[in-house]
């Protein structure tokens, strides 16, 4: 451009009434002085085609709205599941009987978690709130005027501490009950109501497997969890379950089986250490060699479950958002389509603008800005529409699904990205038009 003296001194012009026309133009010929004007041109042409602009935006609106609402609902559901698990406690380790890979050879070894194992674990004096062995079985509970099939859980008093259970009426299973293998039972709130009606259960008797048990307590409603309602269960001393109801003597006849042993750690951070200490003890007690043979028990670490569930829910959220993202993509293609039509329609206008001095980047900018404005506006509207469902759901108390800043950023960022990506090609087509041909275009 060195050969081009753009501000060559104007030729001396005849003085006329309209002499301003013959003064040198005070202009910076930089490309960006006119940027704002180019943006104005873009807005003008979008407003001139309101219906078309709106229809073009529709794809982006739907895309962004679904991305926003799915992200918010997904995050809300994820937080809710995490919350439930945390309510149960992230400090819980559950050891259950049976091996995950039972070969044909050790099928009998499946049921060999015993009361003595639980006592041995307790003897370790680990930093735990409690060690709670339990034996679950499902049985028919028969009351005077009703009967119901329910989970009967044989427990020790430690179970109440480990699981934060509170009493509505009466008391929980005591140490005396445990020692004496007494025929007493504590009912979940719903179960008590189903069998006896409201507030009538305490002191009544029920029959399970031809044993009569006295109701000594009713729990306060715990509410549902992801694993079914706790209020439908009944609790009895584990000794009663082992000796009187379900005959859980070990095959060698020297002890009693338990279904699982639950440890509640004082610090959740101790879980991994606890897990390896307990596993070591049990392998020793079960005479498993150090040659890598499989455990004949399972240890479930609540923190691990939480981690796994978090992974699953965030995967689900991402998956749903990706599906919604596809509609955003389709919206982007819609923008490209309309922009291409628009470029063809306005070929003469482009030719004229170039003929009178518009350079390629001016035209490029004009059409890119149009696409970006379309998609950004669509993104904003989509964000507002997409916020409605999460807000309503939150207001109704179904799920706490807040629209966070990250979601807003993703929505706006993606819609702008879509506009720029799909706007570039039509804009380049426009910028490359030859003014002579473009001016002749009909």
């Amino acid at each position: 451009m060195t050969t081009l003296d753009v501000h060559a001194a104007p030729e001396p012009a005849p003085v006329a009434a309209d002499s301003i026309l013959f003064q040198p133009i005070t202009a910076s010929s930089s490309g960006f002085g006119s940027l704002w004007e180019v943006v104005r041109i873009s807005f003008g042409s979008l407003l001139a085609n309101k219906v078309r602009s709106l229809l073009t935006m529709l794809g982006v609106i739907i895309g962004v709205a679904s991305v926003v609402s799915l992200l918010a609902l997904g995050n809300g559901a994820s937080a809710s599941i995490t919350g439930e698990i945390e309510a149960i406690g992230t400090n819980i380790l559950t050891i259950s009987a049976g091996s995950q890979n039972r070969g044909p050879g050790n099928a009998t070894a499946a049921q060999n978690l015993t009361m003595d194992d639980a006592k041995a674990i307790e003897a370790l004096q680990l930093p735990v709130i409690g060690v709670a062995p339990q034996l679950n079985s499902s049985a028919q509970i028969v009351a005077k005027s009703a009967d119901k099939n329910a989970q009967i859980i044989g427990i020790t008093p430690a179970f109440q501490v480990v699981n934060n259970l509170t009493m509505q009426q009466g008391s929980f299973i005591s140490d005396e009950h445990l020692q004496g293998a007494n025929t007493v039972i504590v009912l979940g709130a719903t179960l008590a109501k189903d069998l006896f009606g409201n507030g009538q259960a305490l002191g009544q008797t029920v029959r399970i497997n031809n044993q009569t048990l006295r109701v000594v307590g009713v729990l306060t409603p715990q509410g549902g969890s992801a694993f079914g309602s706790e209020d439908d269960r009944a609790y009895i001393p584990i000794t009663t379950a082992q000796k009187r109801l379900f005959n859980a003597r070990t095959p060698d006849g020297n002890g009693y089986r338990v279904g699982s042993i639950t440890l509640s750690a004082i610090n959740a951070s101790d879980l991994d250490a606890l897990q390896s200490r307990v596993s070591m003890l049990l392998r020793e007690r079960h005479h498993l060699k150090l040659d890598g043979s499989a455990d004949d028990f399972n240890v479930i670490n609540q923190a691990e479950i939480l981690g796994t569930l978090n992974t699953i829910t965030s995967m689900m959220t991402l998956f749903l958002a990706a599906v919604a993202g596809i509609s955003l993509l389709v919206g982007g293609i819609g923008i490209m389509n309309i922009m291409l039509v628009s470029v063809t329609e306005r070929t003469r206008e482009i030719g004229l603008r170039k003929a009178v001095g518009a350079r390629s980047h001016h035209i490029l900018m004009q059409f890119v800005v149009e696409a970006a404005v379309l998609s950004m506006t669509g993104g904003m509207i989509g964000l507002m529409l997409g916020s409605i469902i999460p807000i309503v759901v939150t207001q109704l108390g179904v799920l706490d699904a807040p629209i966070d800043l990250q979601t807003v950023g993703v929505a706006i960022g993606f819609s702008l990205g879509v506009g720029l990506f799909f706007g570039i090609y039509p804009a380049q087509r426009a910028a490359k038009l030859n003014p002579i041909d473009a001016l002749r275009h009909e």
Partner: protein
Amino acid sequence: MISLRDIHKTYQMGDVLVAALQGVSFSIDKGDFVAIMGPSGSGKSTVMNLIGCLDTPTSGEYVLDGVAVDQLSSNDLALVRGQKLGFIFQQYNLLPRQSALRNVEMPMIYRGVSGAERQRRALAALNLVGMGQRVDHRPNELSGGQQQRVAIARALAGSPSVILADEPTGALDSKTSIEIMELLRRLNREQGITVVLVTHEHDVAAYAARVLTMRDGQLIGDQRN
């Protein structure tokens, strides 16, 4: 002001090379009023596109207002067009949804002229062509002659070195044609603006001070009226 030396222009049409211009040379002085005449296919439109910096010659030299423009890139040509040339088209080529004022301002946008100066210049140019009372009208509210006056104002507003008019009366009736040609002649005489126009009508060419005649890609006549 304009100097063309031994300009050749060859187009490829399919397998055939078409020589649109075969060694055209002429100069146009500042303040002149020149008509380029010739039948269709004579190469007059090609000459006009070259002078208008919309196209570059295959060979030859073209100097416009002291700038050698024959080998500039398309973006630099656009810059030259914006700064040194004003265009008037047969079909006016006004933007349909914009007022006369906005239409006249439009080319200056691309030169980075401030809004206030653009408006002052556009109003002055519209006054000069007698459209000062209709600055807010849109093209569809104006007659053909009025639209062409707006187009002339658009060409004038940026203080071009040369105004190029391609069949400026081609879409107008004879009475309006006379008005437009009178206007161009007045601008040339009173304001000293250099005007180059292409036409195939002798009546129109008669307004010019000098007539260049083309045939088969060559200049065959150069007369002063």
